[in-house]
């Protein structure tokens, strides 16, 4: 990658790393003289980088709501929802209890004292606050009072995981036994995973009102102040910066990702093109 100022600069959710790399590889093959630069971050962090004045041409985030909350209309004019996903519990063959965990006993398995599980930092990464929402919804769905509090108390420290990809990396290294990740990440890493009921995994628009009951406090764009965000079906979105130096390339890249070739790439990496 070249970091010169005339490069097409793209910032994206860490969970989209392989998708973005593959799309950019395809795009630069069609435009061999184009220089480019990819940056993977937690999506909340990514949106805040733009707010703080960092320049990017294309912004692809794991939560479409971040565009409305932080970027539109000042920094981005339009944004497009291009993929959906769900939260799952990823693990490895070395995870404690990996031979016993099932969709019916995952709560009790994770709450065993010797088991380490975690989520990514919810102040920086949508996968992190979505994990917390899943716990709140599980409390209602399974009628387990205080489950969410219990899970938060038992959770392995999340602060070291600015994006879910870092958490997945620690899962592979055996530092944690279980990780709340996107289904697409578990598929890409060929991890075994527990699928959660659609009423709690944030996958289905039919349960949008049910998901809305979950609420998590995260740092807002005003330093020192938090805002409450509510549960929604998981949707990824992409937009072009108003200040793009390479506006045509930025738009063409977005057209590629949201077109038939992009759909195939998304499917290949376990996301649902939408």
């Amino acid at each position: 990658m070249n970091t010169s100022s005339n490069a097409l600069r793209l910032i994206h959710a860490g969970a989209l790393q392989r998708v973005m790399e593959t799309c950019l590889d395809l795009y630069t093959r069609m435009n061999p003289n184009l220089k480019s630069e990819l940056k993977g971050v937690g999506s909340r962090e990514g949106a805040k980088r733009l707010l703080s004045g960092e320049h990017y041409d294309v912004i692809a985030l794991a939560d479409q709501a971040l565009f409305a909350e932080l970027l539109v209309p000042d920094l981005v004019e339009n944004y497009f929802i291009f993929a959906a996903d769900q939260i799952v519990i990823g693990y490895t063959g070395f995870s404690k209890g990996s031979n016993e965990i099932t969709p019916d006993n995952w709560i009790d398995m994770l709450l065993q004292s010797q088991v380490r599980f975690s989520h990514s930092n919810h102040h920086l990464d949508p996968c992190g606050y979505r994990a917390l929402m899943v716990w709140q919804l599980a409390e209602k769905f399974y009628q387990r009072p205080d489950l969410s509090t219990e899970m938060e108390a038992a959770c392995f420290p999340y602060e070291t995981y600015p994006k879910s990809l870092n958490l997945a990396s620690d899962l592979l290294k055996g530092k944690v036994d279980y990780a709340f990740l996107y289904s697409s990440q578990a598929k890409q890493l060929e991890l075994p995973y527990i699928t959660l009921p659609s009423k709690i995994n944030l996958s289905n628009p039919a349960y949008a009102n049910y998901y809305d009951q979950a609420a998590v406090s995260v740092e807002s764009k005003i330093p020192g102040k938090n805002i409450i965000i509510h549960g929604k079906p998981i949707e990824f979105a992409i937009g072009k910066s108003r200040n793009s130096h390479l506006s045509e390339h930025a738009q063409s890249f977005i057209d590629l990702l949201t077109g038939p070739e992009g759909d195939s790439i998304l499917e290949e990496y376990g996301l649902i093109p939408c």
Partner: protein
Amino acid sequence: MLSKPICTLIIAEVYTMSEDLLSKLDPMISMERTIQAELLLLLGQKPSHGYELIQRLNDSDFKSGEADTATVYRNLRRMDKDGLIQSHWEIGEAGPGRRLYELTPLGKQSLDLWSQFLTLQKTKLQKFLQAYKQYEDSLAKGENEVNKS
């Protein structure tokens, strides 16, 4: 709904539809695939994006089961590819851009075909239930005759 060659064959003959032709389709159509008929009907009622379609499908009285996101989008892509529906990106005034799907003339013909197929299925099920009732009645009658003797 149907694999493309069969779909094309059927659509070509849609105006001369015979019971014999529809009966040939019978084993090829699984209940999982009826989701395509449901989506075609919803899109016939009004163009929608996937998010809204999933909500409308789950609110409908004719859904086959819980419509999960992956299944709906997979079927929308397949029908788009087969020319039964078409899509374009619609930019929201304040909200996000979403892919909007609408029914094509071929999709309307396919929906008509589905309607005829389901009518035949309904008739078949009614006949089955009628035969079952006669069978139940005959069993009850047999028991009564045994009791009398």
